[in-house]
């Protein structure tokens, strides 16, 4: 009886539920604050397109997985819960992989093993363990959306920096002109004709780490509560 009463009292987008979505976007970002899901976050941020596809895949897997786990939460024996969770994630990731292979073969080729690695992305297991195992389906879906979007947002932010300065383009469209020499300008067109050059360092793996480090720095100097002692 009390449960029913509670349900009526709590609207679909109550303050608590809205917080589930907005918190992971900033002060509780899964990548920069909870330190989850870094494995795949860095490797595929060379181009914005890959970041968008990866972010969308993770949002789908996280929302669907959170919902399934939350529905099953009273049926899963706690001793084998890790394996049950892994099987659910793996099935969802197989769906994502087959869809990508069928409709976006180029992107799927570039992401190669990193689609498979969504299975062991700590974000997914982390949210299952910390949230979906203990909460009702609706808040779990919201939590999945919030964390998925927080993850995808950071991924795209890093990818924008890396693609803009590393390749001079965004989503494959040139921003600074073309570096290919033409008849009248030997250095290329746009900014390149003035001697601008792409920073090849941006494309290499270590820069991804340094960009995330700088994002963390900026975020923590704005929000002093997040600062660690060591």
């Amino acid at each position, binding site marked *: 009886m009390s449960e029913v009463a509670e349900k009526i009292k709590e609207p679909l987008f109550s303050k608590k539920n809205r917080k589930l979505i907005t918190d992971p976007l900033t002060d509780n970002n899964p990548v920069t604050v909870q330190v989850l899901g870094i*494995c795949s976050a860095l490797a595929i941020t060379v181009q914005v397109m890959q970041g968008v596809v990866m972010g969308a895949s993770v949002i789908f897997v996280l929302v669907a997985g959170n919902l399934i786990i939350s529905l099953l939460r009273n049926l899963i024996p706690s001793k084998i819960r890790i394996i049950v969770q892994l*099987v659910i994630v793996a099935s969802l990731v197989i769906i994502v992989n*087959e869809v990508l292979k069928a409709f976006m073969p180029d992107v799927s080729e570039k992401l190669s093993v990193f689609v498979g*690695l969504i299975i062991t992305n700590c974000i997914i297991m982390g949210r299952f363990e910390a949230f979906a195992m203990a909460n009702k389906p609706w808040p779990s879906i919201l939590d999945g959306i919030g964390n998925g979007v927080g993850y995808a947002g950071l991924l795209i932010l890093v990818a924008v920096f890396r693609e803009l300065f590393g390749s001079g383009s965004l989503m494959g469209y040139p921003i600074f002109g073309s570096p290919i020499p033409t008849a009248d300008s030997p250095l290329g067109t746009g900014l390149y004709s003035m001697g601008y050059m792409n920073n090849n360092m941006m494309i290499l*793996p270590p820069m991804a780490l340094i960009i995330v*480090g700088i994002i*963390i720095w900026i975020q923590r100097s704005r929000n002093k509560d997040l*600062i660690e002692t060591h």
Partner: protein
Amino acid sequence: MESTLDIFVKAIFSENMIFAYFLGMCSYLAVSKTVKTAVGLGAAVIFVLVVTVPVNYLLENYLLKAGALEWMGAEYANIDLSFLSFIMFIAVVASIVQLVEMLVEKFAPALYGALGIFLPLIAVNCSILGGALFMQDRQYSTLFDATAFSLGSGIGWFIAIVAIAAIREKIRYSNVPPALRGLGITFIITGLMGMAFMSFMGIKYGKDKKEDKAATGMIDKAAPAVKTAKAITIKNEIND
């Protein structure tokens, strides 16, 4: 065709799991606060990689790959089960980790004391599943090569986590900007270490035919330049 030694050295240095592919970053960042725990987790990763990758290799080649079921009879030759590989690999990893944990607890209590708490963590470490997926992607020709790759990757991961743990122990005495303390500085240091590890890309591996051709091509291109230089000096001498 790469030799086994090439695969091994490449997996440690130029294709290091952490610095080139960022696999297993979550536990790398979480467990690298002291050298002692880092050594424990590193050893556990080597151990689990060396056990799971060969098992997954056999699974891939005798069960999942297109045409892998041929040994059961000709009518099975055109079955392709590769879409099942994710779920099979992760099931193998999770169950082997569980099995290893129980065996180690029973037969080597001292080792269990050292590795114990890290073993369950490893089932969800990206580097283990990553090892299996890279093995599938690169299609190593023999079981021995796959094992060399897994051992190399494990050692590479071990080196990376022990190195960062040692740096983090020392950095406690330095005056890092407050907002950068902890996670931020660890990211930046890992980035710098990654740059240092990139210098290993210059190692020349075995007899790579393409590379040899490219090298001879460069010599061919260089030769005319030398000739013209000689010609110029001769001209100069004549002028003198």
